[in-house]
């Protein structure tokens, strides 16, 4: 394949395009609660061996070096960068942020598939259940009776409230926090939700603040961990790399045109 330099440059264009898409998604989600930025992972593609080192060059001699030509680059995946986002004070009773590792558990309809999220902008359903903005129930379910006042959620997830006619707060339940052997392996399904995969390992449920799980902060929300300056620098880098690869395409194009015209 004499013109495969074109295809090698094409893989470069495609990879930079994919990276640009990752950056665009990061920037678009700068205001998304609990969003974690992604990083595009590049890897070289396999090589084509055109002449193997050690192969006979003549009867007595062998090639000392092989002719290994690379076939370009690919984005093999994206890694989610799980650093803590900034905690913003909102003052809302049911806005919860995780200070540290871990995820809230949510039951997705239909079928009750369990999803995980760091976006803790919860509300209360008409029946008094703790739900997400989309109306999906938080598990284990937390039921807040009507007329409850001063609902407090402690750093370890204990929910308590004052009931009418009582002087001491009543404990209503405890939120659980899930963590994973490899949280980077969770799969994004959109709407701030993640689901477990073979790579993430099963969820290990427990009490907030224990065994590496973060503490729950009531009245706060975790912002996205996207750093605008970092993304913009990456964007410029991706753009220039794209231009360089397109330059390569036109250089090979010129070579072939020249061969066509001259010969």
């Amino acid at each position, binding site marked *: 394949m004499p013109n495969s*330099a074109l295809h090698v440059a094409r893989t470069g264009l495609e990879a930079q395009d994919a990276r640009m898409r990752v950056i665009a998604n990061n920037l678009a989600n700068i205001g998304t609660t609990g969003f974690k930025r992604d990083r*595009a*992972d590049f890897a070289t593609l396999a090589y084509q061996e055109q*002449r193997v080192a050690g192969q006979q060059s003549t009867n007595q001699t062998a090639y000392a070096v092989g002719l290994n030509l690379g076939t370009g*680059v690919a984005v093999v995946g994206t890694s989610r960068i799980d650093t803590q986002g900034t905690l913003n004070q909102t003052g809302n009773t049911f806005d919860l942020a995780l200070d540290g590792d871990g995820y809230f558990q949510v039951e997705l309809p239909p079928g009750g598939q369990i999803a995980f999220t760091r976006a803790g902008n919860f509300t209360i359903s008409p029946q008094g259940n703790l739900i997400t903005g989309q109306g999906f129930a938080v598990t284990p379910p937390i039921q807040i009776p009507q007329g409850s006042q001063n609902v407090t959620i402690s750093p370890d997830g204990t929910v308590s409230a004052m009931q009418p006619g009582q002087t001491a707060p009543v404990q209503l339940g405890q939120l659980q926090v899930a963590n994973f052997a490899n949280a980077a392996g969770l799969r994004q399904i959109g709407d701030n939700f993640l689901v477990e995969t073979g790579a993430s390992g099963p969820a290990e449920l427990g009490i907030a603040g224990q065994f590496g799980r973060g503490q729950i902060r009531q009245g706060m929300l975790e912002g996205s961990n996207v750093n605008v300056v970092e993304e913009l620098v990456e964007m410029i880098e991706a753009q220039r790399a794209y231009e360089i690869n397109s*330059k390569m395409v036109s*250089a090979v194009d010129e070579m072939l045109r020249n061969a066509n015209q*001259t010969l």
Partner: protein
Amino acid sequence: MDRLIYTALSSMNASMDRQRAVANNLANTSTPGFRAEVFAVKAATLRDGSIEARAPARGSVRGADMVEGRTRPTGQPLDLAVQGEALLAFQAPGGGGQAGEVYSRRGDLRIATSGVLENGEGLAVLGQGGGPITVPRGFVISIGEDGTVLASDPAAPQAAPEVVDQIKLVSREGTALAKGIDTFLKVPGGGVLPPDPTARVTSGSLEDSNVETAETLVQMIDAQRAFEQRAKIIKTARDLDEASSRLMAHR
């Protein structure tokens, strides 16, 4: 027919191969720890007559440019940049440890489902014993300057972190390395590199590709123009042939 055109053709092929190596380098400007390939053309002189005028060109990738790339802080505790000339040792893919070791400067480590520490290409990093490093679940992992993998129990923040293993850092001094067809650096013909006890790593940083874009673009133009000059030689050969056949026609 003159043999000149075949000599020129071989060099046209060599410049096209060179262009492909350059394209591969340019495509990998964003691959962490990538080592640029060095393409060299040599003359394969044919000793068939009294004069050695025929020397077809033969190009080959002579190995990798081992110059250090720029280090970029990422803030990720499992991202490693190796200082100096040392390399990280990884288990060669496939073969379950029998396939030997491959070396890389790519240190974007992560924890696989099995608890094995691997890099962004899915290669398991090797410990001092020569096997992969398995980290305990639920522990906070950090990496020391000499490659020591430390695990601290988040439930007991006061306790000293436990040493899991030490990443195998090797020295390439005095040993030739070649890129295999699977894109990884290894010792040609098998063998392993000696450990480097003085090697240091910086955690929270990644080493970029060492492809210098400006230099590589110049190489690209160089290869392009060389290709065109050789095409011109073929054209000149045709002109010469046509001129002599015209001379014959006038008779």
